[in-house]
């Protein structure tokens, strides 16, 4: 969606528009979820992956548009999330910016609020997590804070919804009574303030219209900060270039006096002001017992105890996946068969008769069933666990513990999150690579993700190798895949130009996750999967059904013969199952039997794999199946995230890799 369009639409439909801003991990998304519910629109700036969430809601008879800015520490142009947050607020022109502050870390949180005041926006502050702060001995004088800042401050506990009504009422009041709530800029140190005002005066005198309609003072600050976006804007105008030159002179004067670059000095100023305000309004109890969350947190981040905990936690996750996912799967499949697929099949048969059309439609219905029976149950369990780990803060500890390993693979600790997600399904994992800041990291992460076996491929490995060849061989196959992921990472890190960005990640003690937020996150992720993957899987199934029911499929066997029989040493029909596995990977085994029944004499649909393949052949087949391009849905998201060139490159290399290893496996099998 185009952001500008969406923002305009929001303005047209709402009485007031509020922007929601805050540092990461301050409970902003919980508050956003609480005040808006599930009707969320996401919008992207072209070329940027960080999203803006927009929603329309109602409060006391007024329609309110809410723009949820990405969580950031500042509003500079140094990172994508900051740039998106800034553009969102400058283009969104909200009537009020609601800044959510973490009462546990007020000083650093105030920094962002001061930047909104710099930009000249009316601000209402929500002092969130006050309950947790009180528990850890930090008391905040809310009235005094409001007086110091010159903006209304409302204490809130987002998880419980405390204070959110007052917050919204306050924001509406500020929006309605603009004259009573003027934006008062705070002042910098005298020498800097004087230069700022001189620059602002010159801007006011010489420039007619300013970018995004910001105030001359705001522009002056941004120019002294050498902000890339605004410097570029000024360079594009004749009067702008002169002012820019003046700004540079002022900046170097500041630099000469303070011995640091002007942007750093301005940041220092804001930190200083934020720090003294926080100091002035908060009382701390110095000696106190560490909270349970804090002690637990120390155990998980310390290496000696953290690594065993990580292993246990991962074990528990996989256990829950197999057990919980399995239970859900059988539940869903019973529901689907009894209520949908069987009645629908009978209905189609009676309406259309058993012909090509009705059978093809049934393949499509069956594809939808597969989404429900195979993908969805595991994803559901997985996403709930993921949301709990995210919201409690444990994922940060995992990222910290694994940073070193991931670094060798050209990534950093934060990439562990999409990598774990990939075990459920590659599609959301590829989308999850957006948390990574550089394109290099995103390419590497995507390349590794497609090698991580998802639930469909795990099903094939279990149903093929574990069942017919033996457990040790299934484990061997998993080990091969693990080695491939590590090897590919090492190789890509070596080959791709550039180096991995360093890890800079805020760590915070454990917090009790909120049920509502977990449900919301899980739903949004499942929705993404359903929107993107499900239609492709159904379309793939229909295509597959058409090929099969019409009998064209048999003509495809011949051309594949050299590759399958000679190179991989598996029956030609198995090659066909591999190719079609691109459309539905979890069906690869079932397809194999069904196709073999048509092509190989003596094989029926009730035969087992061992009737027409050796154990070695089964191993080779499953190995190739689990390495080459995961599925059509994954390829589609890869395309969307990486563009045609890199996505095809990743896909092609997995095919080559699969064939190489398949050939190798054939050789080894032949020798044994």
């Amino acid at each position, binding site marked *: 969606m185009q952001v500008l369009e969406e923002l305009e639409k929001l303005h047209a439909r709402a009485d007031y528009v509020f922007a929601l801003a805050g540092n990461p991990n301050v409970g902003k998304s919980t508050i956003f979820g609480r005040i808006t519910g599930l009707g969320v629109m996401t919008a992207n700036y072209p070329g940027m992956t960080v999203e803006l969430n927009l929603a329309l809601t109602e409060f006391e008879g007024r329609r309110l548009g809410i723009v949820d800015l990405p969580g950031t520490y500042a509003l500079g142009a140094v990172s994508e999330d900051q740039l998106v947050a800034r553009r969102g607020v400058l283009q969104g022109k909200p009537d009020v910016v609601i800044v959510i502050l973490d009462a546990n870390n007020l000083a650093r949180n105030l920094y962002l609020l001061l930047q909104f005041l710099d930009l000249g926006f009316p601000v209402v502050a929500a002092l969130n997590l006050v309950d947790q702060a009180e528990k850890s001995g930090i008391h905040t004088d809310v009235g005094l804070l409001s007086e110091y800042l010159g903006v209304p401050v409302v204490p809130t506990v987002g998880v419980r919804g405390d204070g959110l009504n007052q917050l919204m009422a306050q924001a509406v009041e500020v929006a309605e009574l603009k004259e009573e709530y003027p934006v008062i800029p*705070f002042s910098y140190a005298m020498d800097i303030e004087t230069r700022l005002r001189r620059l602002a005066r010159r801007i006011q005198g010489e420039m007619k219209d300013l970018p995004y309609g910001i105030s001359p003072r705001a522009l002056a600050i941004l120019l002294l900060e050498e902000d890339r976006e605004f410097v570029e804007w000024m360079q594009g105008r004749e009067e702008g270039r002169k002012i820019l030159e003046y700004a540079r002179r002022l900046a170097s004067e500041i630099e000469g006096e*303070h011995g640091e670059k002007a942007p750093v000095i301005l940041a*220092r100023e804001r930190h*200083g002001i934020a720090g*003294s305000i926080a100091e002035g309004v908060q009382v701390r109890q110095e000696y106190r017992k560490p909270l349970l969350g804090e002690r637990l947190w120390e155990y998980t981040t310390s290496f000696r105890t953290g690594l065993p905990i990580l292993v246990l936690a991962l074990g528990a996750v996989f256990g829950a996946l197999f057990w919980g996912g399995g239970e859900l799967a059988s539940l869903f499949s019973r529901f689907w068969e009894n209520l949908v697929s069987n009645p629908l099949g009978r209905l189609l048969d009676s309406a259309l008769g058993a012909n090509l059309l009705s059978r093809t439609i049934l393949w499509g219905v069956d594809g939808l069933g597969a989404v429900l029976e195979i993908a969805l149950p595991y994803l559901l369990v997985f996403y709930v666990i993921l949301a709990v780990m995210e919201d409690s803060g444990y994922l940060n500890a995992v990222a910290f513990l694994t*940073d070193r390993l991931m670094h060798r693979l050209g990534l950093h600790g934060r990439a562990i999150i999409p990598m774990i997600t990939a075990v459920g399904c590659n599609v959301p994992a590829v989308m999850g690579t957006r948390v990574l800041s550089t394109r290099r990291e995103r390419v590497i992460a995507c390349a590794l993700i497609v090698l991580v076996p998802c639930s469909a491929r795990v099903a094939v490995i279990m149903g093929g190798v574990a069942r017919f060849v033996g457990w040790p061989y299934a484990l061997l196959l998993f080990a091969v895949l693990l080695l491939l992921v590590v090897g590919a990472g090492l190789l890509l890190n070596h080959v791709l130009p550039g180096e991995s960005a360093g890890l800079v990640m805020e760590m*915070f003690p454990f917090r009790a996750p909120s049920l509502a937020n977990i449900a919301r996150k899980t739903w949004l992720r499942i929705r993404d999967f359903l929107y993107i993957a499900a239609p492709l899987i159904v379309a793939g199934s229909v295509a597959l059904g058409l090929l099969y029911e019409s009998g064209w499929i048999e003509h495809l066997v011949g051309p594949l013969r050299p590759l399958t029989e000679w190179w991989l040493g598996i029956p030609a029909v198995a090659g066909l199952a591999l190719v079609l596995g691109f459309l539905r990977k979890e069906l690869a085994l079932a397809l194999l039997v069904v196709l073999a029944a048509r092509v190989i004499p003596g094989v029926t649909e009730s035969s087992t794999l061992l009737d027409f393949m050796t154990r070695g052949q089964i191993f080779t087949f499953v190995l190739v199946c689990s390495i080459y391009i995961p599925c059509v849905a994954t390829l589609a998201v890869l395309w969307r995230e990486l563009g045609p060139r890199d996505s095809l490159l990743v896909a092609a290399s997995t095919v080559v890799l699969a064939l190489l290893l398949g050939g190798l496996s054939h050789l080894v099998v032949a020798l044994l």
Partner: protein
Amino acid sequence: MPGLAREGEVRDMEDRSAGMLTEKMEEYLEALFKLGREESALTPTRLAEYMKVTPPTALDMLRRLEKEGYIRYQGPGTGKGRGVGSGKAKRIIVLTPKGERVARTLIRRHRLSERFLTDMLGLDWESAHREACRLEHVISPEVEEKLSKVLGNPETCPHGYPIPDENGNMAEEEIKPLCDFCPDEKGCIARVEEEEPQLLQYLASLGVMPDVDVEVTEVAPFGGPLLVRIGDAQYALGREVAAKIWTRKGPGRGRGRGKGPGPRRGHAGR
């Protein structure tokens, strides 16, 4: 020991003008000197990383420098000099006195040029650094002496790094990178390397800037990240980020009243 063989024969920078050292070789010596002060064991890989070249290129240059007697390339601990490029054990690079002399002179010329460019010509820091990278190779000892005089024999460059005197002696400030900290060690940020302005500004917005107190609470083994406490916040910093943050002992000098990062001049704002 090829490195020691001709040491002592060469005393002066005059050899340089005789065409023995190319600009590239000088840059390598300078880099080796800077890296040698920061890290205990200097390897070709690290050098190649720093110079942004491939390891074979760096190794090639190291061979040349060793042949000319500017460096020694030896196994750690053994102290035995060996030829470049043989054996697989990690070996470290050491500047010979001759090499060190060249490096110190270059650094002096670089930093004097920076002072000149910023103080006299009014260039900004970044352009001054770029220009000085070129100037340092063409300044003669005579110009160097005059330059220092005109500038009033400055002790530091605009970035705050010490300028070696004409004999190559440098005022030592006891600073070390954050990545060398042990758990529970405290310090104060002295400077953040400026090669990546993006990172510098990002860290500054988080409050990671000079004169701010830091405490390392946990260090992951095998070169993993560090847990760092700054004000009320904790951050996980990758080793390579922590290597760019230089610290000195003791609490910050001009801290504000806040526990968080304060203004350098201790002023309170509104």
